[in-house]
């Protein structure tokens, strides 16, 4: 030991004159770092109430609670997360995982109260001093816990696709499907949006786990058209998908298709239920479209003998005659229909109800009747000259294509309308080698067609003419027709309503076409209901209660004919609902 060991410690004294390290609260402020994980904030308008924050929270510090002024709708459950700071550990995994990106943390870390109960609040709903804090923990750029990008679907190239009627979408491989299924957070927000309320998280979970038998069973619980819906469903679920609130929604439709594609028809019976015993009751279904056959399937499952009356030569309705085969190949549709048939459902083709047999006869011969005749014919353009022979019915064109008939469209074709029928007609015409113009009254964004369909139609070479109000059709004198329209501008007439196209004075365009395909909308065929049948019809729709029952207790109706959504999945849901209601009037329990 040397003298330094005695002297050195006195060096401490120099510190006596230094500025202290301490922060004198409340004189000195000491804000949290810009990334500080302080109290939660939530943009309650962006939040969709999916509860993924709750799922990831390892402390169970988050509850999903109803909040005032918010009710469930579309892709929003109406619930909002409430944080219990008695449990929260400020790990911010909730922020990291939040699909919409609404959750964050402020950099505020001081909150003093004598009442322990207050340390539990709904961020963004219960006002707090740190609401809207600029600073605080946010998910770093380039860092997501969830995969917000959809697994790309292998598809034929546009150049390739337009050459034939081969199916464009090739379907996921097992690896792709499982990867896509992995993106789902199983929040279940989508279920309400599905007209059939399919157990979407359930079957996606089955895909993820490779348990396709369970997947198929879950599909058939609410939808006997998985092959068809897996291809052409309007997929309201994907618009509601919570993942879609901050990225690409989960490809729910493709996953459904994946399940159905993977299981051989011969193996369906292994996972699907069958009727335990026959009830001896008979039900007639009018129309072998998705709605009618859905009703037939569930009625057959309940043990009833079902006969389907169909005017066309093949089953499927619009799925067959309205949707081109490059979107829904006939073998896929046949698989769905064949399984329904395998339960003993009889389909009588070429039977036009109203002519033979009459509805009255069905009511007499069967214990119940389900009407699902859809919207079989296109409306006219409703302009002078629309009776011109070169003005064609869009629905009829598609049906003729299905039947393999020569369409005789000529070289230049105009398709008038912005719905899926218009897109299908346009793409069918493209595949027949036509030059196609799609003429629409409003803008592309206003089109009711699936945006994907519009994109693809354009990519395949269709020209989109927007804001064109049809004025008239004139004969061109050379076997074609001149289509005259007025260019329009969009005018916001009433606040909150969608803008209306207003013609620009003088801006009249005339184009010559070989064919003009009208696809502005379709109407019902109701001549088979006579006054004597007593089925109350209002505004060309049979009046039904929510189970599909008409004013005649044994007659039910559903599908496009009745519902507002007018898509396959709604028709399927109607068919299922009506089947349960019919079962109840036939003495069953309806389940």
């Amino acid at each position: 030991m040397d003298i330094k060991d005695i002297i050195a410690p006195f060096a401490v004294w120099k510190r006596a004159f230094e500025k202290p390290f301490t922060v004198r609260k409340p004189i000195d402020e000491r804000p949290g770092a810009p990334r500080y994980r302080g109290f939660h904030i939530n943009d309650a308008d962006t939040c969709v109430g999916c509860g993924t924050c709750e799922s990831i929270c390892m402390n169970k510090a988050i509850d999903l609670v109803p909040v005032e002024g918010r009710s469930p709708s579309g892709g929003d459950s109406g619930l909002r997360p409430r944080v219990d700071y008695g449990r929260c550990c400020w790990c911010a995994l909730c922020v990291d995982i939040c699909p919409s990106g609404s959750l964050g943390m402020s950099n505020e870390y001081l909150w003093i109260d004598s009442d322990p109960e207050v340390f539990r609040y709904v961020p963004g709903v219960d006002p707090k001093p740190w609401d809207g804090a600029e600073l605080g923990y946010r998910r770093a750029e380039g860092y997501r816990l969830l995969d917000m990008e959809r697994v790309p679907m292998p598809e034929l190239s546009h150049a390739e696709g337009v050459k034939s009627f081969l199916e464009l979408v090739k379907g996921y491989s097992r690896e792709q499907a499982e990867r896509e299924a992995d993106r789902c957070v199983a929040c279940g927000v989508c279920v309400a949006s599905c007209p059939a309320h399919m157990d979407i998280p359930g079957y996606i979970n089955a895909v993820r786990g490779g348990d396709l038998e369970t997947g198929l069973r879950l599909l058939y619980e609410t939808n006997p058209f998985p092959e068809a819906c897996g291809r052409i469903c309007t997929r309201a679920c994907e618009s509601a998908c919570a993942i879609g609130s901050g990225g690409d929604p989960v490809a729910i439709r493709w996953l459904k298709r994946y399940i159905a594609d993977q299981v051989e028809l011969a193996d369906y019976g292994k996972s699907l239920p069958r009727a335990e015993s026959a009830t001896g009751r008979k039900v007639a279904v009018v129309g072998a479209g998705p709605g009618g056959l859905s009703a037939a399937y569930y009625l057959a499952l309940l043990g009833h003998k079902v006969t389907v009356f169909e005017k066309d030569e093949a089953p499927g309705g619009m799925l067959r005659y309205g949707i081109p085969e490059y979107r829904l190949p006939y073998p896929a549709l046949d698989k769905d229909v064949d399984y329904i048939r395998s339960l003993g459902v009889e389909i009588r083709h070429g039977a036009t109800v109203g002519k033979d047999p009459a509805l009255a006869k069905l009511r007499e011969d069967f214990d119940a009747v389900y009407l699902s005749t859809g919207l079989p014919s296109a409306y006219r353009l409703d302009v002078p000259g629309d009776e011109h022979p070169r003005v064609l019915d869009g629905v009829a064109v598609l049906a003729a294509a299905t039947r393999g008939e020569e369409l005789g469209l000529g070289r230049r074709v105009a398709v008038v309308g912005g719905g899926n029928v218009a897109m299908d007609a346009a793409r069918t015409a493209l595949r027949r080698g036509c030059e196609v113009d799609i003429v629409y009254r409003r803008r592309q964004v206003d089109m009711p067609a699936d945006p994907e369909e519009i994109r693809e139609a354009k990519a395949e070479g269709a020209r989109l003419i927007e804001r064109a109000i049809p004025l008239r059709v004139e004969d061109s004198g050379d076997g074609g027709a001149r289509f005259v329209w007025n260019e329009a501008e969009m005018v916001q007439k009433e606040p909150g309503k969608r803008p209306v196209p207003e013609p620009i004075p003088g801006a009249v365009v005339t184009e010559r076409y070989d064919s003009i395909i009208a696809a502005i909308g379709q109407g019902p065929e109701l001549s088979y209901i006579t006054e004597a049948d007593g089925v109350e019809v209002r505004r060309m729709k049979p009046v039904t209660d929510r189970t599909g029952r008409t004013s005649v207790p044994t007659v039910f109706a559903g599908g496009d004919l009745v519902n507002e959504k007018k898509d396959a999945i709604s028709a399927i849901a109607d068919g299922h609902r009506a089947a349960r209601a019919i079962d109840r009037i036939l003495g069953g329990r309806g389940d």
Partner: protein
Amino acid sequence: MSRPKTPYVAPEERAVPDLDSGKYLVMWQGPNHPGITGNMSLRLVIEGDSVVDCETHVGYLHRGFEKLMERRLWMQNFPLVCRIAVPEPDFNEYCYAAALEELAGIEVPDKAVWLRTLSLEMIRLASFLMWIGGQAGAFGHGTIAQWSVTMRDYVLDLFEELSGGRIYHMYIIPGGVRADVPPGFLRHVLETMTVVEQNLKDIELVMFHNAVMKMRAVGLGYIPPDWVDRYGITGPNARAAGFKRDLRKDRGYLAYPRLSFEPVVGAESDAFERARLRLAEMFQGIDLIRQIVDFLPSEGPFRERLPNPLHWKIPAGETYVAAECTRGEYGFYVVSDGGDKPRRVAVRGPSYTHAVSVMERLVRGVNIADVAGLMVSLHTYPPEIER
């Protein structure tokens, strides 16, 4: 003036004192004792001022982590693991993440490797700063504790800036890290290192050139070299006994193979030697941090994309990932049965051996006033014993 360099080494076999003889007194030290890092207690049997027997009692900090982890998803355990060793949480994060990545076959981006290394070196410094305060305090130099704890707070400020948390950083997430460095951060790191280095020099002056410290620490808690393997002693406790063992070199994980440093090795193997060695490692740590700041890539991803954490399943398998923490070998043994939750996670904290079997033996024959100083010189953190 000071103790002999090679003091009495207690026999391995424990002679249980006859408490009825009236010669002995049973005295509990802890669980609440300012000289002990964390909450554990020593049941001391003393004769006069000397300890003749000791039993350690842990359990005050048992939170059942390993059980809790078995019922949480792989990712849900990420916020949990850091809490296993409070003053040095990042090693838990690293070992857990690295084990998962190994089992799941995930390659971590280079930037994340550097940021992880930075994070681990920063916490090493913070942990040592806490230890040096405890060590000085245990020998009556409370002022040094005040300085060093302040310095630690400055390092924690850096963590707050980097990760958003001071104590539990939850920064090293499976797959990488949670964020890149914020703007200005590296400058703050270097500035803080300057301040800490300056302070350490002061501490060195007043603590290691200090007659009282030398009288109390020299010769205290001598660990014979043959105990090192016998008792599974690791880290500075082993290095102070002359073993050049450092997992950063031996395992060469993270960015350590790309950094220039040599393990600090001692020889005397007593409390003073261990303290000197740790001080040297602190200076070394500052140097390493500066090197990391130099090398840190400015571009590139900081995290590899993982499967959805809600469904993440890790292929069946097992691994043991260890890292050199301030106290020695910190390791995670992780077993997956292929499910979405761990089958088993076992945490190997270095204090497990140091604070229990080594401590019980070392403390025999020691003056009761030196028990706390001895314990701190082993640098033990009870929470990692009980998990």
